[in-house]
């Protein structure tokens, strides 16, 4: 396992694009999630009346336990960057034909795929660790009086966040394995959610129960939109077994389809 991960990291760590894309991802992720309060202050300064109708200090976006769900939800938007990195990593192997050479040199096709999956696990894990640290730090900074019983509430969404990232990266990997060309794969990855939303709107009237089983919808369902609670609405602030089960099933299928494709094709 570790050996396979090391092989894939050996390929990536000398690849400049990898550092640029991952650097951009983690820096953007850190700055955006940590600067929400500054953003609100900027809004209050710039737009007259914003501050008077709404006391920004009373919006508890960074207060425990809200901070967990808030930051996790918005971090989810950035996963597309990691997805693009996964696409580049796998389509390079087809473009350079190094997948073929790797197999000739003694990797099984499964081991090759596993090395890519393990990198996805690592990137997902790093995202979770990063958001965990930022949420914890900003929570401590902005929460007026820290009540330790609230600090760790809602932390279970970190699990959902991990599945969200990993499922999406598995999806990106599968697209790369099937399409094999980086440009086309990236375009499809960017359009996939939109295409699914079109399907969703069309089946909404006839089979609404089916919607939660759509692949990208299942990923989006893991972490609910949190801001509605500040408009005095009830939101789901707990994980649901069904959303996790559906997303995990898709994650398994994405990787299984990738494996089947690799196994049965001449490379």
């Amino acid at each position: 396992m570790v050996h396979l991960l090391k092989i894939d990291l050996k390929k990536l760590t000398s690849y400049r694009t990898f550092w640029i894309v991952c650097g951009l991802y983690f820096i953007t992720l850190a700055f955006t999630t940590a600067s929400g309060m500054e953003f609100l202050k900027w809004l209050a300064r710039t737009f007259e009346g914003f501050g008077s109708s709404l006391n920004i200090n009373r919006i508890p976006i960074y207060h425990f336990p809200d901070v967990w769900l808030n930051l996790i939800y918005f971090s989810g938007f950035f996963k597309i960057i990691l997805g693009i990195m996964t696409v580049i990593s796998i389509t390079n192997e087809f473009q350079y034909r190094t997948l073929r050479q790797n197999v000739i040199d003694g990797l099984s096709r499964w081991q090759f795929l596993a090395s890519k999956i393990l990198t996805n696990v690592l990137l997902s894990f790093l995202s979770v660790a990063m958001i965990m640290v930022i949420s914890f730090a900003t929570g401590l900074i902005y929460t007026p009086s820290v009540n330790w019983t609230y600090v760790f509430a809602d932390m279970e969404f970190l699990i959902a966040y991990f599945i969200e990232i990993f499922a999406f990266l598995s999806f990106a990997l599968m697209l790369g394995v099937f399409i094999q060309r980086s440009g086309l794969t990236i375009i499809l990855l960017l359009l996939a959610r939109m295409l699914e939303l079109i399907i969703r709107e069309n089946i909404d009237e006839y089979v609404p129960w089916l919607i939660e089983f759509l692949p990208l919808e299942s990923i989006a369902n893991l972490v609910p939109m949190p801001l509605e609670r500040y408009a005095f609405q009830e939101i789901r602030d707990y994980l649901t077994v069904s959303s996790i089960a559906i997303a995990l099933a898709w994650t398994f299928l994405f990787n299984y389809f990738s494996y089947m494709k690799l196994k049965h094709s001449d490379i």
Partner: protein
Amino acid sequence: METVLTISNLTKHFGRIKAVNNLNLEVQRGQVFGMLGPNGSGKTTTLGMLMGVVNPTAGQFSWFGEPPTHHIRKKIGAVLEHPIFYPYLSGQKNLELNAMIKQCPAENIPNVLDLVELTERKDDKYRTYSLGMKQRLAIASALLNDPTVLILDEPTNGLDPMGIAEIRELIRKIAANGKTIILASHLLDEVQKVCTHFCVLRRGDLIHTGPVGSVGSGAETVEVIADSENTYEILMSFAGANDIHRENGSFQVALRDGFDSKDLNKFLFEKGVVASHLVTKKKSLEKQFLEILAGS
């Protein structure tokens, strides 16, 4: 003798195209085995199946008497078609990666780099290498795990004459160490120069297999040039002449069994013709090859 590779009824169809058809072959330890055939005759497809990148339609093969697994591939060094490496990694890093995949110690890297004379350029990116250097790096990578079997597919393709000579010298050096080498090529001369055994493929069918030595032991051809106006008629009257044809101002005389160039020379002298040029030519693999192709 120990059998390294056994292929039985190996078949690969791409749609309607039969790339490899019911191939049966054996390669013994220590052989330098040439696979000859025109382009598109199924050589690379066969090697692709042997190395696990092409899924056979039917048939089996075994390495060292065992069914193939990815572990066995680690003990076989192979370069198929053209060299494949990560262009953005240096030669050294590419070899380090290959050592990880083959699970062999990285200490071998300086040795193989020395062998292919790439030590000076090892820290340059692969994409800056010339074609000859790329081929040599591929051979270095194939040798990394000290394999008992080496598979080379058109190793001199696209190289200049000096590069070709270097690679051939390298192959001979490696063969001298007792390694089994399987060499696919459409260059007959290459196979004749380095191989001990060979097979001929045509459109996926195996049409000949045997040692290279036996090819040269067939009937002799003698090349004759003489300053006589009726050389042709005189040669025609020689009892040992099987076939005569003109080629670039010389006569190619194919001899019957039991006759040799000495007999021909004596005959010409007796007829009052002095040959200014008389060369005995073993039947070349090229001739044999063309005959095999024509005969099948």
